[in-house]
């Protein structure tokens, strides 16, 4: 299944393919559109992620998600390797279902619940960059407003008060839903997420989960390029990190 992009490059990203992943090739295509990046699909029954500079858990319905989204995927054989990589500082990006899996796996705090109105919702929304001091947001500006689509039925972020407090104190909330002018308001909250949270990173900053789909806005023909900033940040961080080694 693995497809390797043509250019031999320094940066190698693994896109994990769970049986019900459906944004795997979309993520692969978005990553491969950056010069110097190789993106490989890695089957969830693999057990090693050695040699990869970053790992992407793409969107989809990993195991059908009839139970709780991501609750079965966390037991996939590959998750041991994801955990190990995360603990050694490798970048791990979870998009949509990938975010849900990271929460279920305990790599990110909190959980994603059914949308407030119980309906699946797919549309382009505004996100405010809350913290650009992370490997995933470094090329963006603090307070920058991004237009990135969501597509989920269970994206309402929830965490207990203590966790929420810690997230805010450590600046782990990287993006919040906002309006076109950057106001984080109740009206701009599509799913009932606490404090309009759209994406959070780990305490160590190297694991990032978000419900919106940056890979869907990486070329003008698809209606925008605001998703590129997140991938570009990762790539620049990896390049620096590699050259420092």
């Amino acid at each position, binding site marked *: 299944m693995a497809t390797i992009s043509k250019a031999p490059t320094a940066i190698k990203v693994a896109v994990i393919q769970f049986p019900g992943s459906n944004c795997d090739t979309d993520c692969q295509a978005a990553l491969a559109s950056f010069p110097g990046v190789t993106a490989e699909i890695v089957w969830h029954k693999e057990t090693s992620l050695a040699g990869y500079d970053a790992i992407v858990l793409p969107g989809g319905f990993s195991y059908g998600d009839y139970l709780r989204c991501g609750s079965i995927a966390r037991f996939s054989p590959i998750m041991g390797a994801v955990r190990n990589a995360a603990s050694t500082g490798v970048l791990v990006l979870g998009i949509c279902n990938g975010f849900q899996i990271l929460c279920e796996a305990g790599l990110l705090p909190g959980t994603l619940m059914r949308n407030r109105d119980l309906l699946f919702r797919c549309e382009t929304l505004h996100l405010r960059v809350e913290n650009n001091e992370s490997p995933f947001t470094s090329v963006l500006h603090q307070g920058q407003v991004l237009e990135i689509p969501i597509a989920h039925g269970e994206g309402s972020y929830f965490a207990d008060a203590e966790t929420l407090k810690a997230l805010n104190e450590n600046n782990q909330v990287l993006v919040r839903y906002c309006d076109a002018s950057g106001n984080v308001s109740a009206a701009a909250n599509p799913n009932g997420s606490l404090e309009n949270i759209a994406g959070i990173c780990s305490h160590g900053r190297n694991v990032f989960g978000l419900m919106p789909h940056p890979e869907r806005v990486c070329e003008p023909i*698809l209606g925008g390029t605001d998703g590129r900033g997140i991938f570009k940040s990762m790539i620049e961080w990896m390049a620096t990190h590699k050259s420092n080694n």
Partner: protein
Amino acid sequence: MANLPANPSITPELIAKHGLSPEEYEKVLSILGREPSFEELGVFSVMWSEHCSYKNSRPELRKFPTTGPSVLVKAGEENAGVIDIGDGWAVAFKIESHNHPSAVEPFQGAATGVGGIIRDIFTMGARPVFLMDSLRFGSIKGDSEQAKTNRRLFAGVVAGIAHYGNCIGLPTVAGEVYFDDSYNGNPLVNAFCLGILRHEQIARGAAEGIGNPVFYVGAETGRDGLAGAAFASRELTEESKADRPAVQVGDPFREKLLLEACLELLATDCVAGIQDMGAAGLTCSTCETASRGGTGVEIDIQLVPQRAKGQTPYEVLLSESQERMLVIVKKGQEATVKEIFEKWDLPYAEIGKVTDDGMMRVRNGNDVVVNVPARSLADDGPLYSREAAPFTPPAPLDLATVPQTDPLKALPQLLSHPSIASKRWVWRQYDHMVRTGTAVLPGSDAAVFIVREANKILAAATDCNAIYCKLDPSVGSRIAVAECARNLACSGAVPIGVTDNLNFGNPHKPENFYQLRAAVEGISEGCRAFNVPVTGGNVSLYNESPAGAIDPTPTISMVGRIDEVAHITTQAFKQAGDQIFLIGEIGSELGASHYLLAIHGRKEGAPPALVFDKEIAIHHALLGLIRKGFVRSAHDCSEGGLAVTIAESCFGTNFGATVDLGDTQQRPDVVLFNETQGRIVISVSPSDKAAVEAELSKSGVPFRAIGAVTAQADLSITTGASVFAWPVAMLNETFEGAIPSLMES
């Protein structure tokens, strides 16, 4: 045959319960030369149902133009037609109904409708790339029990489509939804899927190679969907709720696995034939593959993976459990199947083999329970030419009987009619962006999708104005084809193929059969005029509730090709100052219009006339302008007429428009809301105005400059001495708010 179980005995009551007429049963006796077993009776019943055999419609369907230089697989040959799109690439696409199941269990009915059409596409060896849906419900307005039921059906169907399409990861990129009381108790759910493949990847549903093993792959067989094909071939009644077991339960995750596993398997060259188990399940797939291959197939029920214990052979044969396929594997390559299906954690089993005797033979261990010539089931079913009632063309609308209304009020009323209002509430529930190819989002005239692997740009639209079809089925169905083509032209596309879903009432009633015949002839005429083949489709008859038949609804889905990214055109105005042109006439035909229906509560008059030559000239003129880079926006006039069209082009922008339609000596409501065909509103840069006028004059189509896009977000329309003006924000709120406010009430 000594071991044939004889329980229960075959009585006239049992035969009637299986939907077989006494004449059809006589035919069964003469084919077998003996009394059928219980299982055989069931097999004949489903295979000879309208749903599987098209016994009432096949002679009509032969009228469709189905050939052409680009046709790689013709309509009716396989599960879906295949059309060449150049550079060795092809598309497989088809639309199919799941009306009856959705009436009884909207969520699962619609979900499995989507699942079924997706299987039809990957069975062809194509990777599915996008979905569309055409839906019809009774009115969702008001507090009546009927309206509440209709809202429940609408919400359930949309959620079911979302459930299946979103999970399997296919974008639902376009569609249509209409609300009319003729669909009370009998909603329509037509699902479309398109897939992409290389020419050499076309897979066949034939059981080829004597001795080749027959594999069952996919989900285990349960008791769901028992004899669903026969259920679909009856009218819906109050008792239909008891048929709920005839509705299947969908598992999109299993289908995702099945899709990936089958495409991986097909890429290995170990498959001799493949067929999905859809209507009539195991029965249909075995006898159809044998019939196509000119062979026989022998299977053992006991080897079939089963979900429930104690299922009888009859149940296993007639189950319509979802997410299952039959694969004829080249002998010696069985290990490949094992490897791939184990990778994807899917059940599989070798259940039989291809034989040389032309028989569909089903064993239950040592007992033979079915032993029937395969061809007799698949191809030798009964054929009927039903009686068509003579048709009286509708009286033209007498305008004097239509009180004039104030367009100022009528436009917002039209925009809030659920059939015209924004369908965002619907498509926001569908993932319409996955696979990152959606270049034009839902809500424009046609969906535009970029197929990366083939480097092709496709457009697709689906249309049917059933009011037109009710009042004059021939004209209505021609308009359905023309409107689809017009929608494609507005997006910059040239049509390449059509798939149709013929939704009608009971064909035994002569007026219904007339509608079917006239629609097929009208569609055929339209497809010949636009030079596009019909590549397949679906017939759904018996769409009746106790209140009567639905309005005839021959849904047309048309696929087109766009040559260059620069040609992709959308309906929204792009810049203040741009000049607005109407290509086509101002028009005057108010008969069968939505204005008449929504404002005056009348469904009457003659639908607008359609002249193919004029229509085609207009599409060509538009495409010529698009290719020269002149067109900033293009939107066709359909339900609600010119005023609705121009308003819609303002929506989603910060602009307004000032339009003067001149003095046509007609009532303002006629000018603004008539539905004369062959009309397109475009906007162009002021610097291109003269060039556009020159081009349009040269092409000889009627046109006129009618105004300009304005920075002020008001819509102003002048006709004669009357000026009507609305804030766009107010119109947009009405348009966007209509369906959510009904559904959230």
